[in-house]
């Protein structure tokens, strides 16, 4: 039963990822019309229950490619925090292979940092918000990918 559930969820995420890929050029009218909304606490709170619901997310080839395409600009292609922008930022990009630090952060905090940017979780603003670029399924899978990179779990 539990297994089935897991499979279903994995499939849903794959679908979501696919939808994101194909939907890239189309869903923008809606986005363009909506006014600017800076990330606020309540939104982060709202995102949390969902974060728990969608927990068993798989890291796919798509996740890795997404990381390489966007995140590697700062975090580096191996996630060591040494991307091409790294030396020029006021706060260095986090090294995603460092277990000592990432153990102290919950998955929800990592999710929040990616979705709403560094500021939203009390971190530096040099970490941009990806909420309008990546869908939630992709962000969850990125959190799992970072857990793979650090080979660690939240304590």
């Amino acid at each position, binding site marked *: 039963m539990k297994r089935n559930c897991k499979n279903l969820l994995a499939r849903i995420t794959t679908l979501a990822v696919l939808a994101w890929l194909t939907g890239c050029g189309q869903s923008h009218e809606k986005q363009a019309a909506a006014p600017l909304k800076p990330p606020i606490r309540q939104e982060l709170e709202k995102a949390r229950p969902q974060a728990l619901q969608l927990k068993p997310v798989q890291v796919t080839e798509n996740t890795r490619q997404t990381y390489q*395409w*966007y995140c590697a*600009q700062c975090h580096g292609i191996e996630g060591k925090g040494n991307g*091409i922008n790294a030396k020029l930022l006021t706060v260095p990009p986090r090294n995603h292979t460092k277990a000592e630090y990432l153990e102290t952060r919950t998955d929800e905090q990592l999710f929040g940092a990616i979705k709403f*940017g*560094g500021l939203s979780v009390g971190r530096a603003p040099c*970490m*941009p918000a*990806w909420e*309008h670029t990546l869908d939630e399924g992709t962000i969850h899978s990125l959190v799992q990918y970072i857990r793979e990179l650090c080979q660690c779990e939240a304590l």
Partner: protein
Amino acid sequence: MILRTLAFLCLGGFLSIVPSLSYAGILEDKDCGSCHRLSVEDTKKKFSGPDLHFAGNKFQPKWLKQFLQNPGVIRPAGIITNPGFLQGPPENLPPHPSFLEKDARTLANSLTDLKISGQPLEPVIIEPLSKGQRAKIKYKFERTFSCISCHQSLNLAGKVRGGLSGPSLVNAGNRLQADWVANWLNTPEVYTAKSRMPRYKMDSATRTEFSQFLMTLKKEPASRR
């Protein structure tokens, strides 16, 4: 009679060839199309240089002419679609072809004709920004939206700072059209299939602010040796 038909045919043939050549002419002669996408239809090839099929929407004509005479570095990290992008510090960027004044002018004119049509540009009125306004937008550029993490810009003292993965914006005020900047922030998908820049949701007032702010950045980059 035969002569007249011949003349007609010649003229007809001539006329039908001219329009298709008119934009491509010199750009084709100089082989710009081997590295740059020059038309929307041209989707098959992978290009080693940035897309120019909307050069007429994007660049200031005067800057184009200057660039072609004395090309400076705009993307110190290379082109985002190249396989080597981000794989290591880029070394020995090859020099861009450069031209004498006359050719540069003709090339720049041809580039200015390359436009994506039917693109409703929000007109951006460029007003001089007060010091306070500038500081406010600069705060957004650096903190609220993290633009500076990927783009070089100028601090209030005119010093270059910022990341390298995006094109340098230190000379954006001479290089880019204000309307295009606002449009890029609104609908980047019109200009690129997949950007490395995050998508932002911002209202048109904020887009105008960024555009006005970037228009204040005017510093010639180092030229390629």
